[in-house]
């Protein structure tokens, strides 16, 4: 039985993999290295928590959560954006 090398995951690599981690898309080896990094790197642990909070908050929002005044401002901005593109 052979095992893969014990190369470390860097903070940059963790940031690149965070979405795949949260969606359970990493291989067993990648997931293990991801969690091992979190074990010794508190800042990356905070980053993961922030991502989870953001995903939860964003997932619970619908267009009805946007106040009417803000909707008008946004729609107006989008109209001008299209005009500016031409």
């Amino acid at each position, binding site marked *: *039985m052979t*095992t*893969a*090398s*014990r*190369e*470390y995951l860097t903070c940059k690599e963790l940031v690149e993999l965070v979405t795949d981690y949260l969606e*359970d898309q990493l291989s*067993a*080896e990648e*997931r*293990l*290295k991801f*969690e*091992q990094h*979190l*074990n*010794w*790197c*508190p800042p990356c*642990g905070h980053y*993961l928590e922030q991502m989870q909070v953001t995903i939860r908050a964003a997932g619970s929002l619908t267009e009805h959560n946007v106040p009417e005044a803000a909707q008008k401002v946004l729609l107006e901005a989008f109209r001008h954006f299209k005009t500016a593109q031409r």
Partner: protein
Amino acid sequence: MFAYRFLARGGLGAVNQFKWPLPEGSTPGAWVGPQADTTTLGVYAQRLSDLPYWVHDELYRVELRGTVHALSLGVLASEMRFVERVDGWNESLRRDFGKSCVERLRQCAAATHDEHGEPLIARCLMECDVGEIPQVLAATDMTRHEAVGNLLVQYLIDAVNVQNAGLTASVAHVARVAISECPQLAGKHHEELAQSQWLQHRLGLPSDTWQ
């Protein structure tokens, strides 16, 4: 098949805070599948040689069943249950483990300077109190010294700082990286092995039977 698993205080998963079913007396906890690790892949556990990579608050001996795969930093099984807590692992031993990592790094840094004709730096490193190394080195301007071994001194300062902050897993990581990145120590000192041997000796753990 038996292995180990570190958990956060209170028997919680270190990353997802899952409340693992722990043993009660001599009765093991319930068998748990992949959902406990928030994945469909399986449950993760650690061999003796993996323990330094996963240092946390509580250590347990676990039993695995089903398909078991060996990975670089652990093993993956279909199911796992917690058999017993390794009582010897506590806050005091955890700090001692961090200290041992710092101490080996200090010895390596001093030896490297000594071998390269800088015995005064080596002596300074070995004679000061471990916790005061960053201040002592700053006072002697050694951190700007353009010498072989300077990299180890920089890592040593990092290791002392994270040890003083109580971040034992980070101390162990810094020590492993420092020594693996020092070409003068290639083949002379294997920090990962030293760390797992320290844990095995101090906790009285049997040798790994994993192939």
